[in-house]
Every structure is written in C-alpha cells, then in structure tokens.
C-alpha cells in the first residue's frame, strides 16, 4: 500500500507540472495585457512596467523563472490586488470558500445518498417520482437562484439567518452552504438511485433476503455499501469544484472567498494569480482523486487487493 501511494504521489507531481506548463503557455496566448489603462500608456511607460514585472523577457525565460519561483515556494505577486503576494492572497481568502464548500459537499452527498437510496427502494412509487422531481430541480436551477430565494425567505422575511457578510461564524455559512449543496445533492441522488436499483436486483440481495433479513436490514448491511462504490468516484471532483468557490454565491452573500478572485484575475490577465489558483485547483483535484482511490480500496475489497498487486 505504501509503495502504491508513493507511486501515485510521483504521478501527481508529474500531473501538476504538466498542468502548470500548459496553463502558463495558454495564458500567454491570451490577447491583452495586465494593464487596465493600456490605451493611454506610451511605449516607454509600457516598457518600464514590463521590465518591472519581468514581462519583457522571452516567454520561455518567463516560464523558467516562474518554475524556479514555484520550487522556492514563491508564486509571484499579484498585478491587480494591491501587489500582494499570490500565496498571501489565496491563503487569506481560501478559508471561507473551503468551509462552505466542504459543508455543502457533506450536506449534499449525505442527503443525496439518502434520497437516492429511498427512491431506489421505493422504485416506481410516488416517493421515487418526487425524489426524481427534486433531483431535476436541484440540477437544473442554478445555485444563485437558490441563494437569492433562501436569502429572501429565511433571512429577509423570517430573519432566521443573517442576510449576508461573513461575521457570524457558522451561522453566516448556513445559507450559502444550502444553496451550494443543491447541485451535488441532486447529482448524488440520481447516481445513487441508479446504482442502488442495480444492486437491489442482484443475486446477493436476494440471498440476503433469503437469510431472513428484513428489507431495511438488507439495505443497511448489503445494498448501501455496494451502491456507494461508484458514487464515491463522482463525489471527489464535485468536492473540489465546490471548495474552490462559487463566484456568484460568494458575491450574493458577500463572502470574502476565492471564487470571485479567480474570475477577476482571468479577465484582467493577472498572470501570477491565474497560475496560483490553477495550480491550487489542480493540486486539490489530484489529492482528492488520490483520497477517493484509497477510500475505494477500503470500501471495495476487490480493488484493495488488485491495488496491492499492481504496486508489487
């Protein structure tokens, strides 16, 4: 197992290197420059600015300088956000994004798994239809619509939760968490239902019933775990997606998160911030995929074994 994880980490580093390279050159291919008032600048002014930020060097040189910087833990300085170092920029804002993202993914997947399982057990009844209906709603309505509705009814009308801002700790995070959890909830529920219907039709479930298990015992002891195996694979990428923030929802609730920064950095050609955030996003994705694969082994004994054999 240790050998397997070591090998996987080596691959992760390679993956991140390739992503960094690809992003760097793609970014350089984008038209425009980081300067907002470019039209008014003279050629001299521009040359001075370029020299200051190292943008006058050939692209490949900039690339190597950037790589060396990364190896020293230096992700550069943002062009846009008050010349703060990118690492500080990200670390000071990633907290709220990760918190609501993690909360949303936990809420969404747990409820989604339950909803999907119930729909599968009560297949083709009104319960199933209702669950499907909600899943389609959750999937097709954008999260900012939920955000606004929640804000209006629960915060503005009923005054149960704060309307916005990030100043009441956990209470501030509840509404954005619910808004963000709808999409993963719906996706997980649909996925879980399909898997569970399959599993419930399998021979070992019939054998479990033949042992004298009640229908609920059968689900708890045999069906749930087996249905979860494929569902876990989709949870990983969904989690990363949410944890790096959702710009619109963060804006609606005035959360000082990272989602909104990512979009701004792209529209303004803020190269170091784009690179920093892309690398962060990729890093989280590969880590989550590794975690999912390890989790997979814990849940599915067949994979645990083949994983070991693969590493030997």
């Amino acid at each position: 197992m240790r050998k397997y994880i070591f090998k996987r980490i080596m691959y992760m580093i390679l993956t991140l290197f390739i992503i960094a390279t690809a992003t760097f050159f793609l970014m350089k291919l984008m038209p425009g420059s980081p300067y907002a008032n470019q039209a008014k600048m003279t050629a001299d002014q521009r040359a001075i600015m370029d020299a200051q930020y190292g943008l006058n060097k050939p692209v490949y040189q900039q690339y190597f300088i950037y790589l060396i910087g990364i190896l020293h833990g230096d992700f550069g300085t943002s062009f846009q956000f008050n010349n703060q170092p990118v690492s500080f920029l990200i670390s000071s804002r990633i907290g709220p994004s990760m918190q609501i993202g993690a909360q949303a993914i936990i809420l969404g997947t747990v409820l989604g798994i339950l909803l999907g399982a119930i729909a599968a057990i009560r297949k083709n009844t009104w319960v199933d239809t209702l669950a499907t209906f909600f899943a389609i709603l959750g999937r097709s309505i954008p999260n900012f619509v939920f955000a606004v509705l929640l804000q209006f009814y629960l915060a503005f009308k009923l005054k149960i939760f704060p309307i916005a801002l990030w100043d009441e700790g956990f209470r501030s995070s509840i509404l954005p968490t619910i808004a963000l959890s709808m999409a993963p909830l719906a996706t997980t529920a649909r996925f879980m239902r399909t898997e569970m219907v399959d599993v419930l039709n399998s021979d070992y479930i019939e054998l479990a019933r033949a042992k004298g298990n009640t229908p609920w015992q059968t689900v708890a002891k045999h069906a749930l775990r087996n249905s979860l195996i494929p569902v876990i694979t989709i949870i990983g990428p969904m989690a990363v997606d949410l944890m790096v923030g959702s710009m619109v929802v963060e804006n609606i609730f005035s959360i000082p998160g990272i989602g909104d920064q990512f979009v701004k950095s792209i529209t303004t050609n803020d190269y170091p911030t784009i690179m920093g955030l892309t690398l962060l996003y990729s890093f989280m994705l590969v880590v989550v995929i590794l975690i999912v694969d390890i989790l997979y082994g814990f849940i599915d004994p067949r994979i645990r074994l083949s994983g070991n054999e693969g590493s030997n």
Partner: protein
Amino acid sequence: MEKILEVKDLQIDFDTFAGSVKAIRNVDFHLNKGETLAIVGESGSGKSVTVRSIMGLLANNAQVTSGSIDFKGRDILKLSNREIEKIRGNDISMIFQDPMTSLDPTMPIGKQVAEPLLIHGSMSKKKAMARAEEVLELVGITNAKNRMKDYPHQFSGGQRQRIVIAIAIVNYPEILIADEPTTALDVTIQAQIIDLMKELQNKIETSIIFITHDLGVVAGIADRVAVMYAGKIIEYGSVDEIFYNPQHPYTWGLLNSMPTLDTDSDRLYAIPGTPPNLLNPPKGDAFAPRNPYAMAIDYEAMPPFFKISDTHYAATWLLHPDAPKTEPPVAIKKRQAEFQRLVAEGKINQPEYEEEGGVKDDAE
C-alpha cells in the same frame, strides 16, 4: 411417511404490461420428511416461481390467486412479512443458482455465513463466528479458520457454491431449497456439489427440494421427481418410476433428449416447438401442440392425474381407459422393459410411500 410441506392448488399470476401471465397453474405437491424431491422442467416452466413462493420471495408483480402452502400447520401464504422473515434462513433456506453473483462482494465470507445465525438466534457474535467456521469446514472449505476474513473474489466458483451452501445450512433448516445449484458449475464440480448435498442431508437431517433441468443430476440425488410443464406438474413419481416407467409424452421427450450410453444415433433428440405463451394458457393439455401423440381431446380438456402406482401419477389422456393403445418411442419402450425386468427381479425398491390426501384422484 411424514409430510413436512404441502402445496395445494397453487396459482400464481404475474402482472405485466401485456397482461396477466398465468405462471403457476394449480400446482399440488408435497415434500416428505428427509426426502429429496426434484422438480424438473425447462426454463419458464415455473419451477423457480414455485419455490420462491415457498420462501415468500416472489417478485412484486406476482400475485398468488389461490392455493395454500402448509408448513408445520401454518399456511405460508397467509403469514405476515415479519412471520415469514422468521422462517426464511431458519426453518427453510435456499441455495441459489449462480455462486459467482450470490455472495456479497464487500463482506468477508465468515460474516456472511454467520449472518443467518445472528438474525435468527440469540447467539453471541463470537459463537456465531465459531459455528460459521465449523460449517465452512463441513462443506469442505479447507483451512476455514484462516479464510473467514477472505472475500468472495478470493474463492473459485466451486468453493463459492460451497460457501452459499454453508449459508443455507448454518441454521440446520428443516427444508433446503436448491434452485439449480449446479447449473453454473462445470461437470466435475457439479458431481462434488451433489455428493456434498447428499452427505449434508444425512448429517443435518433436512428435506430437500431440488430444482433442475438436468435429468442426469436428478438421477444422482432425488428420491422423487415432479415434472413441470407450462406452469403445471404433469407427472410425478419415484425417481425409478420417472426414469424407467414414464407415462407422459413430455417426460418421454425430456428423457429422449438426454444422451445415454446406448444412444446410437448421431443426433440428439429435441422436442419440437416451443412452450405455450402463458398470457393465454391453452384450454387443454399445454403440451398438445408439441406432442406427436396428441389426440383431439388434448386440445379440448385438461387431463386429470391418472394413477399408475401409489406413488406415480401422470396427467395425460393417453392413460384414459378409452384412449387408443399407443406405442411410446423406442428408447422409452426400452426403459419400460428394463423397469419390468428390475421390478420382477426385485431390484427396484417399489416405493414405500403411501398414497395420501394431497394426491389428486384419478378422475375429476
């Protein structure tokens, strides 16, 4: 001979989009204590549905429209879900067809074998695991002690079927239902599993209902045989009576399509045609359209059971006193001659079962 299970006039329909499929049509049979009853018939004849109704494991769209299944003075069909769950895996248990898919892939086998004990008994977990290990040893899993924590994929098909059998017998059930337990196995493993089941039957004193379409397997294990066709039992008797003195043309067809050592033809016989659609079951004998011996009345009226011996009954108009004398196929005639010889020499144990109430009378 004590009856442990008695099925009377069982009728099961399946609701489908096309209409109501009459899958089981007035089936009667009983199981004597300690015996092995084989139910044979081709796919779709209703064997599995019949035994699943005994387990209370029918599909959701199945409806029992009439009949009773008497087990220890109680009608299984009238029990609540809770009550039948107490019987399942405890008094009556089942061995499934495909060992490759019958075990939970994510649970260690020791736990799977111990599960029925934990569901039904007040046994501690430790005791249940010890018993599971014992039973695994009994069904021939070598080194069971060290394999309790292994998962199904670490066993071969034959071993997995042994584990499935261990699950079925761990509570020493009174009735063991085996639904084609050897179909998915290769022939050498089949023989081992049959031997194992015979051995276990003696050890744990259980009665077995054995479902199969393989007559070769039947000969090896059964005491009595019931032949099913299109949702009905059409002939039943002791294993010798069915093999050597068959009366129903369908049983003749089945026996003829099984190669024997003295089959001299290069071609294997196959019964022509296909079974009837049970959405609209035929009025008369369902086998009539495929039966070269069919008479006019076969299309008009369902034949009642005619008695051949105390234990042997067949539902075919050929046995009616007014029916014209027919000559069965040559191979069957050979079998019947053999039967006469064996009876004369006293080599066939003329079955000692008595005729009992569950048996239909000659004429209706």
